[in-house]
């Protein structure tokens, strides 16, 4: 075992193999959060239904996926499903596992956002003759979105790091590629430090994007607050 090597650290800082892993981490996150949000939205709408036959399956899904480790879900999808004749590639398994798990959490975030919109707003929209889907699309969701965006941003931050779990099913994302390099080069700390820096760069960049999105959704309210302070 050697001591810390600065040349080793800097040498791997711009390593294209690791950068490729980071890019995989990025698209894993982007696809999983998008698919998870779509499914999560559907689950939230189901849970809000007054019809028990519609609400119950969504409740069960959320209970199941929030109550078991995502690591276990991934392993079951990749190594358990083939037993049922369902054979998914590593990439398919990783995307499916992350999306299904994320959907359960996002469903609760979306549901809380929708419930936070006052009932009076729905009544006002209905009184204008708007139909259920129009009320949802034009009155409830835009207001819910402002409430949903901050926790959704945290989910993206979390998912950027959770993607590393897919390394156990040999998905070649940042962590997996770091480990592969470590096995060849034995620079454990240097390589993990580079990986950590990559993760930090990605989460920090996301923080920046998230703040901009939050400002955009808070615009109507920000001007209102400024006005009130002004008076």
């Amino acid at each position, binding site marked *: 075992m050697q001591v810390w090597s600065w040349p080793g650290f800097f040498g791997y800082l711009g390593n294209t193999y690791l950068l490729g892993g980071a890019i995989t981490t990025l698209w894993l996150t982007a696809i999983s959060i998008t698919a998870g949000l779509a499914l999560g939205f559907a689950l939230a709408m189901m849970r809000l239904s007054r019809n028990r036959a519609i609400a119950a399956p969504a409740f069960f899904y959320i209970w199941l996926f929030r109550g078991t480790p995502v690591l276990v879900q991934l392993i079951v999808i990749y190594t358990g499903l083939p037993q049922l004749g369902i054979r998914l590639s590593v990439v398919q398994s990783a995307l499916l596992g992350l999306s299904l798990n994320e959907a359960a959490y996002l469903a609760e975030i979306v549901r809380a956002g929708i419930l936070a919109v006052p009932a*009076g*707003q729905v*009544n*006002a*929209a*209905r*009184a*204008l*003759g*708007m*139909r259920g889907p*129009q009320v949802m699309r*034009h*009155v409830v969701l*835009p*207001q819910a979105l*402002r409430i949903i965006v901050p926790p959704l941003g945290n989910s993206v931050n979390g998912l950027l790091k959770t993607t590393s779990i897919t390394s156990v099913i040999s998905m070649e994302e940042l962590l997996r590629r770091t480990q592969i390099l470590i096995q060849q080069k034995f620079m454990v700390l240097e390589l993990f430090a580079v990986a950590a820096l990559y993760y930090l760069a990605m989460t920090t960049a996301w923080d920046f994007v998230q703040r901009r999105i939050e400002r955009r959704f808070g615009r*109507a*309210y920000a*001007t*209102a*607050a400024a*006005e*009130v302070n002004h008076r």
Partner: protein
Amino acid sequence: MIEIQDLGKWYGSVQVLKGCTTHVDKGEVVVVCGPSGSGKSTLIKCVNGLEPFQRGSILVNGVSVGAVGTDLPSLRARIGMVFQSFELFPHLSVLGNLTLAQRKVLGRNATEASARARALLDRVGLAAHAEKYPGQLSGGQQQRVAIARALAMDPVAMLFDEPTSALDPEMINEVLDVMTALAQDGMTMICVTHEMGFARRVAHRVVFMDQGEILEDRPSADFFGAPETDRARAFLSRILHH
């Protein structure tokens, strides 16, 4: 124009409307008053089908509100409603508030809708505020926008649920003035309000409710001149001398 016959409504096992019968003719202004919890809000929410009812019938322009086949959204599009807490859409500008339902419900294009919106904002004295957001307006201004939003749908009748009770005293009159002008233009109106000055000046009839029942339904001069029931007398003396 609006016929309410033997209306009965229950929340679970609690009956909140008991055999209410009244009518509002075209161009008539009816004020509904009564103690808190007497069922005033529930009554007018039944008129545009925001609340379902279990007994009796309501006809609006000959359309039965409670009938199974009635398309409630298109009925509601023709009945304006104004709420105690304004309920402007906070994420939309004033103009956006006035054009949303015109475009999505009536299918007007953006140009038509905003022309109509601006004309109405002018009518309620808020032409200069079209681009602002509701949160930037005072309560009285917000309520006037809410009235304009309802008028933008070209309603055949307007329902008001205590439109001034959430307002600071100095803002009440600007809203009542808009309502008075509307009444003078011949709008059919049901107003739940405790503004007895407005009722005296503007209403053709007063409906007095208590505990889910309509106890008095008379021309406003008669009602204020000599209420028939003890409960109406007690209510009036409480509200006029507080």
